[in-house]
């Protein structure tokens, strides 16, 4: 269904922009967001809580040279917007002027969701939870707790600026996650599986919820027999789709132009240099199908695009937002994102992944004499200044004489981004995207995707307790 009017009336947007630059501001932006979300938690065999939430507001930004003023408000009346525009403009302290802003475009966006979740009854959503719960519990008698979480979010945004931009997006994301606890002689273990895409309720036509719940249960049960992870440096094989977070942390953040410009990245001044094994091509792509980090426009109104960051091992580009690209005199790359209308945008990733190599995945495993096979990584963290990163292994096994053997207890992996990129020995031909993620930076979370084919890193430090 085509929307008939923008989130905020065109004249009101123009008026707000005019107020925002009236103090001598060089550039101004109005970002309006209407977010409706709902979630349901199924825990201990019953629906525990169903929650719905609504947020509507605007963030107004004014720049003068390198100085930014920003104010946000949940009051979208003429008065509320005018107050926020004046607050943002107050940094400019210039001579008053009146300048009309002409807006191009219609400020309208159509939802790409086939089935908007808000049109589906809550009863139907609850049934999904029950279905996942039953499947997980039926998988194994050792499963002692199952938590299933459903969430849907529709985020409509409108971005206008004093250069005349007037763009909109209508983003819908739907997600189901299953967390299982298994109880054994040695204590408790957990297993998790999540399916989430930038789609509506059609998610559940395209994905088998029971199979996913069984995988989560299987992970927890497998780990009951897990032995402590080794301690020290070993070759690590990462299963396809299970470790894109490594590249997100290990080099993605270091390629964000805001960090690069402030000298807080190990990749500064290295464009054109060989920074990775020649087999590595790294891409950030906000246009990628229905992946979790996909958007039509970023939160500064710039069209999402496919950006090749590392090509055949050579550093080709960083990621950019409005502020940083303008300072560098180059186009933005569609990476200006923000958590909500209450936040200033900054350079953020979308869907970040390593492209296919040409080796069969089973040959990669067979070619590893002694190492660790990581089927699923958890979250991670990086110090962009040094490149040192850490991330958790939520499902991992030993590799002994070219075969996957004993499951390992949870632990962290640690390494250094630039070193790992050079230490990628072999890349598989079985690319897959991984689980949906939320990337945190300076206190703001945004949805991101990641992916990679099966690959082997020559050495990573495994933070286990076994010698």
């Amino acid at each position, binding site marked *: 269904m085509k929307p008939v009017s923008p989130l905020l009336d065109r004249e009101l947007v123009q008026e707000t922009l005019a107020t925002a630059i009236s103090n001598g501001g060089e550039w101004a932006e109005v970002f309006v967001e209407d977010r409706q979300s709902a979630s349901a938690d199924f825990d201990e065999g019953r629906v525990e809580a169903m929650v719905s939430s609504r947020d509507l507001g605007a963030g107004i930004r004014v720049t003068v040279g390198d100085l930014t003023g920003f*104010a946000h408000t949940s009051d979208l009346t003429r008065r509320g917007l005018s107050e926020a525009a004046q607050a943002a403009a107050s940094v400019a302290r210039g001579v008053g002027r009146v300048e009309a802003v002409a807006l191009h475009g219609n400020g309208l966006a159509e939802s790409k969701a086939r089935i908007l979740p808000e049109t589906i009854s809550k009863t139907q959503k609850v049934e999904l939870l029950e279905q996942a719960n039953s499947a997980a519990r039926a998988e194994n008698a050792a499963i002692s707790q199952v938590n299933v979480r459903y969430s849907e979010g529709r985020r409509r945004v409108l971005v206008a600026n004093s250069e005349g931009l007037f763009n909109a997006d209508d983003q819908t994301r739907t997600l189901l996650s299953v967390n299982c606890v298994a109880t054994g002689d040695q204590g408790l273990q957990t297993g998790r599986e999540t399916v989430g895409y930038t789609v509506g309720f059609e998610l559940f036509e395209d994905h088998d919820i029971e199979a996913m719940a069984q995988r989560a249960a299987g992970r927890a049960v497998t780990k009951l027999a897990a032995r402590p992870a080794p301690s020290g440096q070993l070759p690590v094989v990462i299963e396809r789709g299970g470790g894109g977070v490594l590249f997100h942390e290990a080099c993605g953040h270091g390629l964000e132009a805001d960090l690069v410009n402030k000298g807080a990245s190990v990749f500064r001044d290295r464009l054109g240099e060989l920074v990775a094994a020649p087999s590595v091509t790294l891409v950030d792509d906000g246009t990628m199908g229905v992946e979790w980090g996909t958007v039509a426009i970023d939160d500064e109104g710039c069209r999402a695009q496919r950006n090749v960051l590392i090509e055949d091992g050579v550093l080709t580009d960083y990621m950019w937002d409005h502020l940083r690209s303008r300072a560098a005199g180059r186009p933005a790359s569609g990476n200006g994102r923000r958590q909500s209308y209450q936040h200033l945008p900054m350079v953020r990733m979308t869907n970040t992944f390593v492209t296919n190599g040409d080796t069969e995945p089973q040959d990669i495993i067979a070619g590893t004499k002694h190492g660790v096979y990581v089927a699923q990584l958890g979250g991670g963290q990086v110090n962009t200044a040094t490149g040192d990163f850490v991330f958790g292994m939520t499902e991992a096994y030993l590799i002994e004489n070219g075969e996957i053997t004993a499951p390992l207890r949870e632990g962290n992996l640690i390494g250094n981004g630039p070193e790992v990129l050079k230490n990628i020995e072999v890349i598989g031909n079985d690319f897959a995207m991984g689980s949906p993620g939320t990337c945190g930076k300076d206190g703001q979370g945004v949805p991101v995707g990641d992916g990679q084919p099966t690959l082997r890193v020559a050495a990573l430090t495994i933070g286990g307790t076994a010698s």
Partner: protein
Amino acid sequence: MNKSVELPDIADELVSLAQGNEQVEVCLSRSRSTTVKAYSGEVESVRSGMSEAIGIRVIIDGQQGFATAGSLDHQVLSQVIEEARENLRFAESDPHQALAEPDGVESPDLDLVDSAVLKVTDDQKSAIAIDLEQRCLSADARVSSVRSAAWSDGWGEFALASTNGISIYTEGGSCSIGVQPLAVEGNETQIGYAGDAARRPDLLDVDRVVTEAVEGATGMLGATKPVSERLTVVFEPAVTSAFLGTIAGALTGDRVVKGRSPFAERLGEQVGASMLTLFDDPTNTDSLGADNHDGEGLAARKNMIIENGVLSQFLHNSYTARRSGVSSTGSAVRGARSTPSVGLHALCLGPGRLDRQALFEEIGNGIFVRGVNGLHSGVNPVSGDFSVGAYGHKIRDGLLAEPFSEATIASTLQRMLLDVVLIGGDFEFLPNGSGMSSIAIDDIALSGM
């Protein structure tokens, strides 16, 4: 939004809309905040804003519905209560689900309101942020730039009312500073961070923040990957806070009643070294976590958690208490946007001894951990597995020695509590509200080369 309407009035009005046997609880909040960042001797950005939030719980016969919104617009308020009523119909009945009932415990009646934070002018905020940056740059020639130097302040009010006769209102503000200097030597760059937070601007310790941030960056220059071994680690207070915060999280009613705590069956048992005492004390105004009420409007109170190594009690909100057959410990935590969970207000470690240098001498050899990362990915509070990235310094012959990085430390939460061998006498309240000291823990696996 109508600024002339007071939050308690709105809350009472909404509660009066309860129908039949509905229990209704309304939470409202309104806050203002400012952040000023400096870069290269100039103000880089000024961000300000006003936020409002409402959360309504409706419960009938153990079925709970919740809805929330980021606006106090009149039309939104009536939508939220209707949404909560609709959500309730899909929740299954739980005999323990009900609103908190007044328990007769007196609120500590702390004075947490200091309007000094509201009187700081925009120019003063800018000057503080710029000064913070400039002082880091001049503190050490190796400091090449400062990624971020920021001043933040906030003022908020919170009202909660329910059909059980609870009606509370609190307001208060705080301010904080934070800085991230970069130190460069040769091809190597290290980043440091330090910050402080307080209820009054004059309590912010700028000197200490500058010193700690700069030393955090310069001290790590030349760090190398250590050899893997089992050894004794000393956590600095902020790291102790992260570690004990994870432990305390596993001692909350939420985790315990749902079978997600490795300590669930261990009440009254020796779970830690006998020198270890842990409590939550929101009645101490030295902590930024101090409060008069918990998230359900019950009086805030001091709760022992671990006493001389013995697990004395779990923390509860009214729901987890009812399920466990005990009384709420006043440990509900929430914002208006979420239902009450169980958590900590001001987690404190009991007293220790020895200043840091004396502590190193007593340990002899080991590592001093200045920071950990990957806590959210490497610690499983259900199984107790603990494995995090760590950086800091070696301790050799009782002295702080060369820096190390790119290493992990691992054990289990259960073992680490028992392996505490020393608690330092350097107790301090941290910006997160916890009161912590350095602690030494034995027999940790350090993984490096």
